[in-house]
């Protein structure tokens, strides 16, 4: 049998060549800023579904959800997947109105709706920070896989990420969308194959559940405490994760998705409202099938190996299973699919981060008349720098991709949600209300996040986004109402 590393290297090389080919064709189509940021507002349904799904299905899904299912069981579906899908319903509402505005970025909508360059720039700053931090998640996901795959050092592995993320982002949204189609197909094949192999090895769904119900070990040796028998099949993991935390995670994951510029930008880039709405509905169905696959891999993987001794975090579970527990000639392909999920999200986020800095901050405040070609090159320089910063920060990454990701999404729900939806659906929404809710939401979630991370740790009962959204909602309502009435009086 051929050496594992050589098999993986072959897959990796093949993937790299195909990715370079797909990415290149996007370059040629990009003529101006509109092409670069929103693919000329002319993406059709299939391309939109591919890029929407690929952006959604990231390392937080592939590795975070699978590893958390492995550790906590079915509770993960309520903690992350259900809130995401509910958030997508909000996106449909957003799509029904947002395309009335001729915008290239979400913060530009804030400028048009509230006539505030300051709010546009504030939103741009938050986008830059949030996405740089979120890209760390993807780089860590990628790094874990590559270091397993090619048996190389983690730091060397994350530096490889440059080649892919930066290359695919340089070509703008056309390049991102084209490589996304390759990546999501690869991700889907990998997920289905892995789920199929797990089920085959266990002997079916019933045996999987019967086996999972008996498990009472630690998922890995450094895990906080052993799994209580039956907890993997309990909706609330027999109290391992508080029910209220599961419920309030909707305010981070669900509403964070609803207010997230990486999805709003795909509504803008779709060729019309009908395409945007169909994109969201069909993508969620498609993703639902992939998550069923992850449930089988996570819980089934636990049945096949109740404790993994050699790993430190939930995010290493999936790569470990593929490389050891269910190793087959398909393992290289499945591991590449995890990489594809990370890259296809990171490049989308890097592009939105670039627009936040170059368009919403620099062009908006300092240089509105910058020529097109200079502006596009400026974007590429930013992409290079932001990618570098993310890689450097990923050298010392967070412990859990899924928990960390929920906090970052919480920043979007606490700041963007009210100005975005409130502005579209409430005519009394004012600039003062929008700015105040943005600032109050930001301060509130920052405070509760710091409290959770440094003082409560695993004992936390409430997701930090919950107080953040409540505070920004009340502020938005009362401040807007006050200034609206004052303006009329």
């Amino acid at each position: 049998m051929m050496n594992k590393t050589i098999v993986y290297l072959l897959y990796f090389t093949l993937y790299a060549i195909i990715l370079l080919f797909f990415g290149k064709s996007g370059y040629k189509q990009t003529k101006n800023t509109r092409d670069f940021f929103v693919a000329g507002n002319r993406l059709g349904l299939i391309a939109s579904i591919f890029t929407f799904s690929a952006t959604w299905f990231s390392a937080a899904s592939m590795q975070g959800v699978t590893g958390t299912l492995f550790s906590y069981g079915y509770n993960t579906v309520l903690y992350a997947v259900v809130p995401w899908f509910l958030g997508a319903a909000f996106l449909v509402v957003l799509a029904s109105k947002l395309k009335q505005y001729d915008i290239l970025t979400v913060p530009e909508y804030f400028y048009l709706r509230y006539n505030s360059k300051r709010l546009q720039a504030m939103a741009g700053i938050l986008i830059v920070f949030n996405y740089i931090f979120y890209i760390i998640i993807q780089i860590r996901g990628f790094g874990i896989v590559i270091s397993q795959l090619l048996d190389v050092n983690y730091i060397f592995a994350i530096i490889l990420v440059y080649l892919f993320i930066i290359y695919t982002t340089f070509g703008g949204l056309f390049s991102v969308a084209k490589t996304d189609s390759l990546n999501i197909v690869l991700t889907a094949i990998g997920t289905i194959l892995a789920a199929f192999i797990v089920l085959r090895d266990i002997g079916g769904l019933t045996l999987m559940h019967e086996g999972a119900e008996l498990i009472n070990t630690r998922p890995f040796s450094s895990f906080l405490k052993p799994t209580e028998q039956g907890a993997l099949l309990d909706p609330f993991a027999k109290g391992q994760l508080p029910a209220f935390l599961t419920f309030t995670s909707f305010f981070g994951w669900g509403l964070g998705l609803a207010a997230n510029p990486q999805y709003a930008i795909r509504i803008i880039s779709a060729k019309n409202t009908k395409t945007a709405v169909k994109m969201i509905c069909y993508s969620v169905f498609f993703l639902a099938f992939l998550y069923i696959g992850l449930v089988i891999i996570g819980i089934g993987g636990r049945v096949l190996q109740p404790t993994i001794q050699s790993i430190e975090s939930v995010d290493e579970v999936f790569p470990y299973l593929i490389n050891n527990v269910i190793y087959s000639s398909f393992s290289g392909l499945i591991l590449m699919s995890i990489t594809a999920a990370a890259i296809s999200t990171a490049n989308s986020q890097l592009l939105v981060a670039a627009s936040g800095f170059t368009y919403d901050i620099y062009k908006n405040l300092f240089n509105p008349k910058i020529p097109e070609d200079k502006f596009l090159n400026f974007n590429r320089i930013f992409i290079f720098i932001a990618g570098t910063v993310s890689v450097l920060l990923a050298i010392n990454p967070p412990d859990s991709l899924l928990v960390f990701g929920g906090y970052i999404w919480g920043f979007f729900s606490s700041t963007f949600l009210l100005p975005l939806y409130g502005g579209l659906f409430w005519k009394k929404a004012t600039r003062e209300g929008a700015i105040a809710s943005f600032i109050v939401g930001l301060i509130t979630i920052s405070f509760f996040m710091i409290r959770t991370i440094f003082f409560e740790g695993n004992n936390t009962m409430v997701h930090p986004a919950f107080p953040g959204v409540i505070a920004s909602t009340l502020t938005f309502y009362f401040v807007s109402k006050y200034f609206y009435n004052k303006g009329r009086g």
Partner: protein
Amino acid sequence: MLHILGLPLKTLIIVGGLFILSAFAPLFTAYILKNKKGKWNDE
């Protein structure tokens, strides 16, 4: 406790039910909005 495919009925209803409902939530929302509006703004 009743099990279906080895999964407790309570989990099947809570987790499975919410999973399916939430997966259909965007479609339901689109259906309601479309009926209310008649057609999308740019149609």
